[in-house]
């Protein structure tokens, strides 16, 4: 019961942090496009535009979920928030993949590719173990099953693509700090997705049980969205600093 009273607090925190990430992301991309004429790389613009679209969609999903939760007093099963989250996750994957391809094309070598393959195998190994050991998809409908596999899988793909930022850290000069925050945030989001999935498909949500699992998922989401917001703030300040120089 103590956990249940915290659910609305964490929902509000998630909404605030997601909103901050979306607003700061939008501000950063808007500033980036204003500097477009000063010879900024098109790939960089494309990547950050899709990142901003992705985080705006995630924030809209959180807002929809929050409103539905506050009006109907229970979190929606498969509904409109998922539409925004699916679209947002795909935008993020496109953004990070584009950046990864760009980095490998310009600075790639076989050692880094092998290391990335190894890291990818580790992430997918953990994911496979997670799907295999927790049989929580029996009895759910096709939409729930699809999303149950979709969210952890796409978050893993986003994480693997974003790990290239760490691999090529020495080659990224300008936006190093901001981008490294984004990678850490992606780890937190993946953990949040895995816990949320467990929470949602064990029928905890339907029974109105929040508990440690639900709260754990929300804590990871709060950390993730806060780090996205900090990342975009760092990127924005860096861009402003460059502009003043």
């Amino acid at each position, binding site marked *: 019961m103590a956990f249940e009273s915290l659910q609305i607090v964490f929902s509000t925190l998630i909404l605030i942090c997601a909103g901050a990430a979306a607003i700061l992301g939008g501000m950063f991309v808007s500033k980036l496009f204003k500097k477009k004429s000063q010879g900024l790389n098109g790939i960089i613009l494309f990547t950050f535009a899709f990142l901003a679209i992705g985080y705006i969609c995630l924030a*809209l999903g959180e*807002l*929809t979920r929050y*409103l*539905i939760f*506050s*009006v*109907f007093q229970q979190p*929606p099963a*498969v*509904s*409109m928030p998922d*539409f*925004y989250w699916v*679209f947002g996750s795909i935008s993020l994957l496109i953004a990070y993949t584009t950046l990864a391809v760009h980095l490998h094309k310009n600075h790639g070598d076989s050692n880094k590719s092998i290391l990335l393959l190894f890291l990818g195998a580790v992430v997918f190994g953990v994911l496979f173990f997670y799907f295999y050991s927790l049989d929580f998809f029996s009895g759910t409908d*096709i*939409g729930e099953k699809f999303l149950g596999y979709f969210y952890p899988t796409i978050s893993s793909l986003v994480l693997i693509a974003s790990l290239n930022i760490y691999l090529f850290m020495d080659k990224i000069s300008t936006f190093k700090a901001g981008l490294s925050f984004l990678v850490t945030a992606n780890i937190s989001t993946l953990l949040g997705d895995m816990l949320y999935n467990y929470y949602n498909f064990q029928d905890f949500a339907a029974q109105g049980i929040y508990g440690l699992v639900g709260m754990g998922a929300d804590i990871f989401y709060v950390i993730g969205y806060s780090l996205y917001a900090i990342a975009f703030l760092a990127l924005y300040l860096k861009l402003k600093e460059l502009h003043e120089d």
Partner: protein
Amino acid sequence: MVLEHLFPEDWLEYRTRYSFILGVIYSVIGLVIASFLFPGDPALVAVAFTSMLLLPELYKIFSIEERQEGSEKNFSVKKLWMDDINIVKTYIFLFLGILMVYSIATLLLPNVQNNNLFREQLEIRFGQGFSGQAVSLQDTIGTIFPLELFWSLLSNNFLVLLACFILALLSGDGAIFLITWNASVWGTIFGITAKLAGAFSGQSIFALFGIIMLVVFPHMMLEAISYFLAAIAGSIISKDVILEEFASDRFWSVFNFNLYLLLAGLVFLVLGAGVEAFVLEHVDVYREIIEMSVNAASQIL
């Protein structure tokens, strides 16, 4: 008109976000004038006044646009998009401004006043009249993708798109009337649905309105953008015929640019109908809110 001289000539072209304010101000003025001059049936007159006030602004930006497109040497999709992006943004913000005024007015005004002020818009809710169907209430439970609903939405919206294109082609900027009309219909219906559902369930009408907007926003914007693109294509072709020498190279290049724009409008239309059909099929919350509002309406009647 006096109002248009309050803003510099290229104000909307380069400060697209301000068109939201313009949409808000002009639709409030339109509503106030119409309710004073035609208190018996102000709904369509208000839309006409708002469109009339917007016409000079649009005329200015379309003339600038036609001159820019005429000076393009080679065709590319990127150039086409870059040329038209500001006009699309202007339309989007104008549309959102008008939609917001009609929604808030519906939410805040008493029912009796709503029934009079927005009579024509409210009739659309019961299947009468001509409007884009971002507000379809058809029941289609039980399929992954409701193909029948998709075709029904697409065919209705295609007629609206065609009307926008033809109106713009014949009258230059006349499609703004249909765009304003659509914004007013959608704003009124979303507002009244939230208001009735709130009265039925005792929930906050603003929270319900927020949910409705978040549910309809993706397909509403896709559908609206398709109408904007058709209107822009029609308007610029219309000005092209007047300003350029007929069948000259420049004439054909501008003409081709805008046919591609119309094609892009069709793509947006198909996407919008697809998203709407999917959302109506799978978002139970939206159906629940509509049911609450229908129940409240039947209690009132």
